[in-house]
């Protein structure tokens, strides 16, 4: 089973170069990518995440709204019962804001200039962890 990554841009920002490159790198590495495109809302991302059952959700923001939307997105993910799906952020996130996003529950932040290999490795590691977790769940089942 391949790792399934849901990617989206939230808000009005149109800078999609980074997210499109990440999508291609993930696909080239054999992962499955669902890209929702630009101008999503928090609700449209959460509802897609509910339907598509991804292993990771990746959000790209280059319009300086990461600090506003990250906490809200994480809350909505929890409300939708998706707290086990790690959310990662990419884009122009200044180093001083990384902690803020992580405190909100974001699993990892990959600012512009990050290594594609790191992003791929992170998404793969989630899959491995989830597989182990579900294997453990099966074992403990009656």
């Amino acid at each position, binding site marked *: 089973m391949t790792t399934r990554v849901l990617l989206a841009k939230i808000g*009005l920002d149109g800078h999609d*170069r980074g997210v499109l490159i990440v999508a291609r790198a993930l696909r080239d590495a054999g992962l499955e990518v669902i890209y929702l495109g630009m101008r999503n809302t928090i609700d449209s991302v959460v509802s897609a995440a509910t339907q598509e059952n991804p292993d990771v959700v990746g959000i790209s923001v280059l319009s*300086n*709204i990461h600090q*506003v939307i990250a906490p809200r997105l994480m809350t909505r993910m929890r409300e939708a019962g998706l707290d086990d799906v790690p959310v990662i952020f990419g884009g122009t996130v200044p180093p001083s804001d990384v902690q803020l996003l992580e405190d909100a529950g974001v699993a990892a932040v990959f600012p512009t*200039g990050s290594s594609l290999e790191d992003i791929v490795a992170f998404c793969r590691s989630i899959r491995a962890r989830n597989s182990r977790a579900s294997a453990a769940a099966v074992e403990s089942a009656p």
Partner: protein
Amino acid sequence: MTLTSAVNRGATPRERFEADTREVRPAQTDAGLPLDLLYTPEHIESLDYDRDLGYPGQYPFTRGAYPTMYRGRRWTYRQYSGMATAEETNERYRYLLARGQTALSVAFDLPTQLGYDSDHPLAVDEVGRVGVAIDTVDDMDRLFDRIDLEQVSVNFTINATASIILALYLAVARRRGLALDRLAGTVQNDILKEFLARNTYIYPPAPSLRLCCDIIEHCAGTLPRFNPISVTGFHIREARASAVQEIAFTLGAACVYTDEMLRRGFNIDDFAARLSFHFATTPSFFEEIAKLRAARRMWARLVRDRYGARQERSCVMRFFSGGAGAWLAHQEPLNNIVRTTVECLAAVLAGAQSIHVMAFDEALGIPTEESARIALRTQQILAEETDIADVVDPLGGSYFLESLTNRLEDAIRALMAEIEELGGYLRALEAQHLQRAVLDRAYEQELQLQHGTRPIVGQNVYVDEEASATIPALQDVPAVAPEQIARLQAFRATRVAAQVHRALGDLRRDVESGRNVMPALIAAAESGATLGEMADEFRAVFGEWRPQL
């Protein structure tokens, strides 16, 4: 006295050079054109001085748009900036003007660019984040408070809502009793490249193109010093297109606009001289200079040969050049000052009419007052402390540069021919061919960056973790939505509702009938209609564009 060489005695100098350099590593330009080690007269044997270069200010304008270039008039310092609110932005403008900036360039927030008032549900999180929020004619007035608009030229980086922003600006001009023939400035108004790269489109391509040409048509009759469009390769390049793609796609778009104006019954000489352009300069120094000289020559030839211009001035490509931000590094941001200096130098040596230098912290966030000042100072130091502005096209005639200019022109022409084979620019754009071509190239380049085969100091070579940690103070963007929304609502409460209603009705009628929308838009702006209300009239008739993924 004759010098003798130990080896190759009797060989010609050229034979010796070839023998000495056989092992040299190959090199190519950023766009992938192979580079020789040395350029000689042989490389430019086919160059005909009068036909291909000529004199500055004369066809084909390879050497410059104006005869005296910077000795007659220095290029315009046009730093792009927009803070959250009209007041703050006005303060930054007056700060920069007081320090020698000579023109303004307005950065708008995303709701303004996409036709949403600040209290729209999709807008609230984004008000004032990446530029100034403009909802009303009063906001526009505040933006230019205590700035003489007959003296300062203003560049508006606005596309999907360009017609509305221009209407709000003209409403302010009328309110202040300014002479329209003295207003100088530019609306970017290049919607086609939004579909290709920048992505702040609203309506589908066809009605978007109509609005764009309504502006060109309106300005041709009433605003002789205003550039109704800045056909822009900048963002295509920022999306990591090559120099060849940047120029081919920009000239392709310029031809679409021109064709539409001719279809409307205009003569090429009625509007071509007011078309302006905007390109990027990256640290690929010589290629950028050659690219821009090639672009100027190609446009001149297109306008004369394809469109049959009779007036020489119709053939001039005037351009605004912006240093590329995509080449700036996150790590050790002060190093970016060196990169932006090289970019600015290339723009000057290519003969740009106005220049923007990126702030060194642009890769991290909205520039601070200090970083914005250093960007302006970079231009001033180059203009006033060096000798680069004293001679027109100082690199002209270089075997290397002329050869590179010719080869870039060939490569650009070949790509334009390919687009024609795909069914023309509009079809290639709608089918996402152009977007895919840029993405392919961007991905390839990203892999080079990732693997360090394309070095960026501090990012993939000479990485210094300790230095990376030191980041100058960033501009904190405060939440301005409540303040802006309160002001917008107060504005709505004071206007005469019946007048606004009637003006919007008139606008809708003109949108539906196909008449030029500008007169009704200006009347609506004066009546107190907001940006979002005017954009909604267009939305109701045109719908919104959703690209295929």
